[in-house]
């Protein structure tokens, strides 16, 4: 298995509070991604990083920010959590192929509930 861990695995929080999810890899992969998975929507990209301090938005980035200060860590922050951000969040890592990202290795997910 790819060395990728997410923390926390479960979190319950209240509307308006800040939340940070952490993704840590030991594989030295260049690309790191944050996805959210919701019933009926599949996996949707929030933000991704293609190198240290290099990040870009995905299709559902509103209300989220990210930071990558080291190759191995990618943080996802919800500045002020809302109930619509209740979801399962997956971190993934990959190296690029010609034409796009190579196979993604996913973490086990972080289940966030915003009350």
């Amino acid at each position, binding site marked *: 298995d790819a060395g990728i861990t997410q923390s926390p695995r479960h979190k319950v929080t209240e509307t308006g509070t800040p939340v940070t999810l952490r993704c840590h890899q030991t594989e030295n992969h260049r690309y790191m991604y944050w996805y959210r998975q919701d019933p009926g929507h*599949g996996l949707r990209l929030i933000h991704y990083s293609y190198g240290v301090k290099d990040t870009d938005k995905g299709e559902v980035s509103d209300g989220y920010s990210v930071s990558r200060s080291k190759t191995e860590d990618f943080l996802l922050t919800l500045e002020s959590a809302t109930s619509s951000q209740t979801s399962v969040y997956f971190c993934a890592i990959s190296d690029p192929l010609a034409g796009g990202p190579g196979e993604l290795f996913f973490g*086990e997910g972080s289940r966030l509930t915003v009350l």
Partner: protein
Amino acid sequence: SQKIEQNSEALNIQEGKTATLTCNYTNYSPAYLQWYRQDPGRGPVFLLLIRENEKEKRKERLKVTFDTTLKQSLFHITASQPADSATYLCASTGANNLFFGTGTRLTVIP
């Protein structure tokens, strides 16, 4: 962006038969497509990648096809087993991203 459609939300099949899952993309022709397996409560796991210029790819009991004319990929599991029961996700490449379908939940009945 790309839209991925996996037409069957759920598919039930008898053990030993071949399961066929469909994935359609609607916009540009991707450089390649990927297929993943996801078990309940777990992250997706990569299965196969097929490039635009490949018609077919095989790995053990798995076979994937890529038809750029139909804008479609088919995923086959031959001699299906109850252990193959899971949700299968199709993904299309973007510039630095994968666009995922909502998945097909396969149940193999003993």
